[in-house]
């Protein structure tokens, strides 16, 4: 999106010039330049180890640069610390203090008068919709609420610049969207926001983004500029034989830049849509693969990012998995069969009447907000905890799910980190290979493969604790599938993994599914959920919607309207007062509105409402549902129904 016209005249808030930082021989930041203007949301996007956190620490004044300048409103970053609010990945809240006490404490540290702390505190808590919880201990808040509280704490000091270093890692989609709505609001009030995120759907909500890799900024621009710079279109190819189609289109074919496989389609990047479509039809036709439908769309930011990283030489390998015992003969049979699972913890019902069927060769995505019961469900499905009522079938076993033979067939990668930090990478792999009873040679083959997949060839002796998160995650994934499980559980496998590595992950997951492995995966990232064959949406312990990514989108009864208005924030605030809060979300200057009624009527009504307040509607159109919009709509509707029932 383009920044509002007024913004380009705003004073420069953050100025970074030829900034360098070395840690001994390692150069983390290698001479970067950028400027952020007042009221702008500026995104720093890049893989792990790109130098984002170092940049943040220098700007926050907690670290000195080796050379170059970093100023905030023309003052050295260190001298301007009173004007900056800095939020790290781990929110520095006091879990034993209440929400109000946390805010009071931060204000006291900055010597702000009590009356003022209370006034600002209650204003922000209200703005973030957590004012009901002022007396709750911070440790008892959900991830999303903690993050909002941390933001409120940072804002109490009334900073002019907000530095957010991957603030939404591990936060569910509903909370993430609310968080970004808040950021948009704050930016319009004149706050300058610099934010790092590994998630490109979030980057779309920045005014401008800079792509950072190995300490250097490679590209800067608005998201649409970046998308256009790719000079390509995205073809959504729907076909029933995804794997074969992917193989047929991959490789170096003229006119095809990139192929990415999703749960029920392929995304093919082509320089020119018409010729590209013909090329795809030709290639698939030659391979005898039927095409259901091809749709032309704009590239996503992710495509640009991947193309850019590839252009500068970053490769993430997804070497062929050296599996010897494919489960193809099981293909189509039920691997995970759960009927009416319910689980109580005391008086609390964590999971209610959940039925899931996952077949061999299928990738099933379980989605839900924090606290929706996903983790409990996955633990029941893999036999770690027993359901209170309901029946389970797992890998052909109905009786004892905890038997050795069943567990030998299961692979599990837990949400919490599942490798031993105090062992080397090699020792970890030896251990997991050994504990599943693999032979020496088999362990060596698989180890070789995992190291290649993780990009850690020759680094077998590295201590696991010393690896950055993204690498660890890939080793953990490798360790979980060394024994060629026929049923694989992945609990947020790609949390904190950069886009290129995430692609490698999903290519692997697809490979395994093609071999006949049944895969159940949970994620907070809906762009990723598109890669599943089927999805289940969980709300308050129940599955409320299920189907293919395309299917759940089609099943939406309402419409999604995008409106571009002259005063987006005021327009959004106004529309929110009209209807339910969740229906309106602000993406920079564009407002997304979910309506249950007729699209035309809704657009007319919106125009009228805004016109009455003196806001001009520049553009309004119906747009296709994104999975995130579907998710939020489904979750909110289910919550409403539950409230009505109660």
């Amino acid at each position, binding site marked *: 999106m383009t920044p509002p016209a007024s913004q380009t005249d705003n004073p420069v808030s953050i100025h970074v010039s030829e900034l360098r930082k070395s840690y001994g021989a390692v150069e983390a930041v290698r001479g970067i330049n950028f400027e952020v203007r007042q009221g702008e949301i500026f995104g720093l996007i890049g893989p792990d180890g790109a130098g984002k956190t170092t940049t943040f620490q220098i700007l926050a004044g907690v670290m000195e640069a080796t050379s170059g300048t970093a100023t905030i409103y023309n003052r050295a970053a260190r001298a301007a610390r009173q004007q900056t609010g800095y939020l790290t990945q781990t929110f520095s809240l006091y879990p034993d203090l209440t929400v109000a006490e946390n805010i009071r404490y931060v204000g006291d540290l900055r010597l702000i008068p009590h009356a003022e702390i209370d006034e600002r505190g209650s204003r922000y808590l209200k703005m973030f919709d957590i004012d009901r919880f002022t007396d709750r201990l911070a440790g008892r808040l959900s991830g999303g609420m903690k993050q909002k509280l941390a933001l409120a704490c940072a804002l109490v000091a009334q900073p002019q610049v907000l530095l957010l270093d991957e603030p939404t890692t591990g936060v569910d989609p509903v909370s993430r969207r609310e968080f970004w709505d808040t950021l948009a609001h704050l930016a319009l009030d004149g706050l300058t926001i610099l934010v790092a995120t590994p998630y490109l759907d979030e980057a779309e909500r920045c005014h401008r983004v800079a792509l950072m890799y190995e300490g250097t900024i490679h590209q800067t621009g608005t998201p649409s500029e970046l998308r256009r710079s790719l000079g390509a279109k995205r073809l959504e190819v729907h076909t029933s034989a995804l794997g074969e189609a992917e193989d047929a289109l991959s490789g170096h074919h003229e006119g095809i830049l990139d192929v990415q496989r999703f749960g029920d389609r392929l995304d093919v990047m082509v320089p020119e849509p018409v010729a590209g479509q013909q090329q795809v039809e030709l290639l698939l036709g030659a391979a005898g693969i039927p095409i259901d439908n091809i749709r032309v769309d704009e590239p996503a930011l992710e495509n640009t990012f991947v193309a850019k990283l590839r252009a500068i030489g970053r490769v993430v390998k997804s070497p062929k998995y050296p599996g010897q015992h494919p489960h193809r003969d099981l293909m189509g049979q039920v691997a995970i069969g759960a009927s009416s699972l319910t689980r109580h913890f005391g008086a609390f019902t964590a999971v209610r009447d959940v039925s899931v069927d996952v077949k061999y060769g299928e990738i099933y995505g379980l989605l839900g907000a924090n606290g929706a019961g996903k983790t409990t469900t996955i633990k029941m499905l*893999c036999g*770690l905890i027993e359901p209170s009522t309901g029946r389970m079938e797992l890998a052909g076993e109905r009786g004892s799910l905890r038997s*050795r*033979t069943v*567990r*030998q067939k*299961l692979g*599990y*990668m*837990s949400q*919490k*980190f*599942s*490798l*031993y*930090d*105090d*062992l080397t990478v090699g*020792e970890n792999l*030896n*251990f*997991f*290979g*050994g*504990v*599943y*009873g693999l032979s020496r040679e088999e362990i060596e083959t698989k180890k070789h493969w995992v190291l290649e997949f993780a990009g850690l060839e020759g680094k077998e002796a590295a*201590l696991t604790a010393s690896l950055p998160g993204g690498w660890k995650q890939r080793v953990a994934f490798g360790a*979980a599938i060394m024994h060629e499980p026929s049923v694989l559980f992945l609990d947020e496998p790609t949390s904190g993994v950069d886009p290129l590595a995430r692609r490698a992950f999903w290519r692997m997951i697809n490979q395994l599914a093609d071999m006949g492995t049944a895969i159940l995966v949970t994620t907070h990232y809906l762009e990723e959920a598109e890669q599943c064959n089927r999805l289940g949406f969980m709300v308050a312990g129940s599955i409320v919607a299920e189907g293919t990514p395309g299917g759940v989108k089609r099943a939406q009864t309402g419409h999604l309207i995008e409106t571009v208005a002259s005063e987006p924030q005021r327009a959004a605030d106004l529309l929110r007062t009209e209807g339910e809060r969740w229906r309106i979300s602000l993406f920079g200057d564009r407002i997304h509105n979910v309506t249950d009624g007729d699209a035309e009527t809704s657009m007319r009504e919106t125009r009228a409402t805004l016109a009455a307040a003196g806001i001009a509607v520049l553009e309004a159109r119906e747009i296709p549902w994104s999975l995130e919009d579907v998710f939020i709509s489904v979750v909110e509707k289910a919550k409403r129904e539950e409230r009505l029932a109660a």
Partner: protein
Amino acid sequence: MAALIAKEFAQIGRDKRLRISLIVPPVLQLLLFGFALNATVDNLRLGIVDFDRSPESRDLIAAMTQSGAFKSAGAYASAEKLGEDISRGKVDAGIVLPVGLSRDLHRGQQADVQVLLNAMNANTAAIAQGYTEGVLGTWNQVKLKSGELHARFSQIGSAPRNLRGIAALHPAFLFNPGLVSSWFVVTGTFGLLLTLNGSLVASAAMVKEREAGTVEQLLMTPAGTGEIIVAKIAPLFLLLCGMVLFATALIKVVFQIPFRGNLLIVFLGAALCVLCGIAIGTFLATFTRTARQAQLMSFFVNPPLSSLSGALTPVEAMPHWMQPLTLVNPIRHFGVITRAALLKGSGLDILWPNILALAGITLVLLVLSVWRFRKQLG
């Protein structure tokens, strides 16, 4: 199973703190307790008032200062002067030998010797008194044999706040004057060390898996809970047994404790004690989520365990109702076994009740902790 054990060893190998805690505490505790908790008081400054100035009085003074417990702090002209210096803290104790000491002794009459003690530190005073009694007793014996002399000993103890009073003392006959053995403390510390250090190391190791969040991953592997537990306990047990050997060597070399009995009995007891420690640690770990919590828990458990062990203070010094409690304390039984086997040379024929009790306690603790651990895993 092999993979599990190999993994535990690799983890232990990389755990610097664990390795340190297998070497430093034994050295530190044995040396510190052995030397510092020693009840022996050496080189007390003794002021002397000799009114008698006879060969007998000089002989008695020599006997006093040669014991090593006292050293001469000079002669005084009067008992008052001596008293002043005691209250000023210049000397720790004083002895007054009256005129006619030798005369009375030669007449076969009872001779009185006055001893002044600074009882600011009641313990030191009591010990000094004991020494004096012992020295006098020995001296009497020698004299009695050779020349029918008999001295009686009386004392002026200055009570706290320097109130001086005279307390009549009953003559006591102490064997081994001037020597309180560090052997008692060191043999007791040995047991404390094995059990307490074992429990600390074990609780840290047990809680680690849960703290790191790897326990779920482990539970999803085909490894059984029994295997997991054995794989956790076995390497720790072996390591702690290494510590037993190390500590034994230390005891022998530094404190020169005589190894009169069968060392195997001591090692058997030590192995059981180590297992007890591991069981206690494992048990505690099941109630906690982090290593820090586990350590805090052991702060509650360790003091009663050590004070009710008879390791540092005699069980007989405890109130009667409390004494039976020590019977369920593994450290007590181990203390009895080590002391008897090392110092007295007792064998299985005498020590079997203690070994049996220790084995019983170990078994109960192990079963309890494994049951808790399993329950938690499942």
